[in-house]
């Protein structure tokens, strides 16, 4: 099978959906002529023109608001927020309007709006351009939150998001755009809300998503050499959370480590941990462990930035401690 990058996979997804459905259009900052800050919308403007690929002013609240209005009136907009760090500017639209309007109008309208954005650290962009804010978003009932880790998942999930009649926040990772993976040429989609076992194992369950999957895979390879078998659950969608898959894995291994780039306090890992306590308590043979980002604004220094988020070494240490000492 051919291998393409995460960026290409996303670009293909957009193009295929625009081709298939005339109501799909894109809007965002620098996405048309420039092709997007990370190049995801490259060449789409050339192909589909001004009416379907719109460069907007720098006004995130307006981007989401326009997207909502278009969605309510029958379009399938895909809005881009260049950095998730700017999501705070759109929270009035996103939290109070986008997420609630279908509910408040008794289901008389749908909101087929996809908000693409990207997050995470790794490029030493400092505290304003390196955050992981997904845990804010999973606290908003009414939206879906998708965070793919591989080119294959990115393409399949973006296509599903665009076809979804409810609003989706689709969070990419800036360090994944150049990663490559197998993506079939024929069309496929991946359902929202279904986690994926990226690696089967028997001793410890690693639950993760987005870029941290790569970190976990690296740690798992090292752990395997030492005889520790890890099972890796890639959540892929954070809201709704596929608790069932996580529970099934924990029932198999009885030990769980959650790995997230987001800072630890109040993070997604806390929610997963609570779900396991509620649903699989009797299968736990050791306390749940979280490996997460430090509770600090992301440092600009490359050395400190590396220290602020989990890496394979930290995951390796946490898992091997959990598997060995106990």
């Amino acid at each position, binding site marked *: 099978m051919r291998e393409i990058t995460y960026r290409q996979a996303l670009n293909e997804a957009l193009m295929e959906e625009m081709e298939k459905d005339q109501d799909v259009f894109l809007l965002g900052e620098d996405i048309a002529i420039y092709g997007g800050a990370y190049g995801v919308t490259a060449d789409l403007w050339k192909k589909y023109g001004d009416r379907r690929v719109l460069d907007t002013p720098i006004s995130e609240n307006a981007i989401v608001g326009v997207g909502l209005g278009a969605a309510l009136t029958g379009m399938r907009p895909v809005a881009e927020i260049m950095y998730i760090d700017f999501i705070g500017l759109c929270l009035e639209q996103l939290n109070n309007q986008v997420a609630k309007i279908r509910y408040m109008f008794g289901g008389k309208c749908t909101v087929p709006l996809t908000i693409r954005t990207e997050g995470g650290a790794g490029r030493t962009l400092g505290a304003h351009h390196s955050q992981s804010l997904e845990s804010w978003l999973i606290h908003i009932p009414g939206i879906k939150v998708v965070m793919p880790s591989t080119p294959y998942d990115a393409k399949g999930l973006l296509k599903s998001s665009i076809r979804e009649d409810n609003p989706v926040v689709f969070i990419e990772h800036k360090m994944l755009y150049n990663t490559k993976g197998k993506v079939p040429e024929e069309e496929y989609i991946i359902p929202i809300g279904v986690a994926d076992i990226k690696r089967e194992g028997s001793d410890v369950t690693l639950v993760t998503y987005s870029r941290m999957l790569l970190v976990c895979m690296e740690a798992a390879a090292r752990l395997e050499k030492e005889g520790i078998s890890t099972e890796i659950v890639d959540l892929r969608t954070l809201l709704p959370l596929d608790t069932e898959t996580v529970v099934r894995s924990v029932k198999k291994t009885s030990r769980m480590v959650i790995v997230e780039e987001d800072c630890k306090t109040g993070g997604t890992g806390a929610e997963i941990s609570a779900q396991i306590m509620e649903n699989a308590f*009797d299968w736990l043979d050791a306390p749940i462990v979280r490996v997460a980002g430090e509770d600090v604004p992301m440092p600009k220094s490359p050395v400190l930035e590396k220290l602020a988020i989990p890496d394979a070494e930290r995951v390796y240490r946490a898992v091997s401690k959990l598997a060995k*000492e*106990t």
Partner: protein
Amino acid sequence: MVREIIMPKLGETMEEGYIVSWKKAERDSVEKGEVLFEVMSDKTNFEVESLHSGYLIKKLYEPSDKPIPVTTIIGYLADTPDEKVPAVESKTGERKSEGERKVKVTAETAPAEKESEMAMISGEPSERLKASPLAKKMAREAGIDISVVKGSGPGERIEKKDVLEYLSTRKEKEQGAGEYRIQEWTPLRRIIAKRLTESKREIPHYYLQGKFLVDRVVHLKENLKEKQDTELTYTDFLIFAAAGAIREYPLINARLINGEIRIYSAINIGLAVSVEQGLLVPVLKNCEAMDIRSISIERKKIIEKARASMLSENEMKDAGFIISNLGMYGVENFQPIISPPGVAIMGVGKIGKEMIVVDDTPQIHYVMNVSFSFDHRVIDGSYAGLFYKRFKETFENPATG
């Protein structure tokens, strides 16, 4: 209003109790002061009264020989019969109880003492057994008591692999040993097992052995019998002699409690008594103030009570020195295990005629084989030797003792 009913802590050393019976059924009305249930602890039964009027809406435990840690919620009392039982995940806990129960002890207990016992109920949490939820579930499903499994996790937490290992060794043993039947643990058996294991594990025991020449005691006993006077037993003479010797060597009467060596002025002597279900130690209090006849009367009373399972908690506590006699079975000698917090115990063997060399001449004497076990943390050998010597002198010369 719904009130918790908990397993009361009825004495300093009580960690768990057994429900002997409920005196009320669920939804029965209960008057303040009425007996709610009966508890067995440290070898005694207590009736526990309700402090409030209301309805027994829920029993969480049925009577059984499974021990229940003190302060565990065992049921609920409500003002009306239809109130809902609160949902509780954990039944044990370090809950602060408001003295929800009152205990009626058959024997008289001083009010002050009662109060301190009540304080104990709400005070210290019992030490918690650490086991992973999975290990607990596996133990439950295998029908084993998880406390018998040794934990290998952090802080000795019992985990899955420990339960598996326990089950596999048990299986091996079962396969090797042929047919058997399982003797159920009785509550008393469990208590004996726990206490004596602790004693033998923690107390550095050492032993003294000797022979008492008891011709005089034998004769005196027979004379008294002929005179139809009070019938004294060898045990009475032993208690009397022990009290005398302890008066001079008070360390023998010490008890090791909370790291303190407490030397009591009252000389309370315990007697090991075999009963149907196991072993009891009724206590003869204040032996220092009694002559041998009073000792004999008290001794008879208390042993009869023990055999009839009528002993109160009070009659079994605060033993110092303990006497255990196996002489009637023809046993020559044995080394008894110290019963903490006491620090000394005596094992009495049979009385019989033996050839003894006195002044280069073989003589026939009545001889009693005795042995003593001491706690070396408190009592050194020379001190024990002096005590032994004094005991022997007193016992061998009853007229002067």
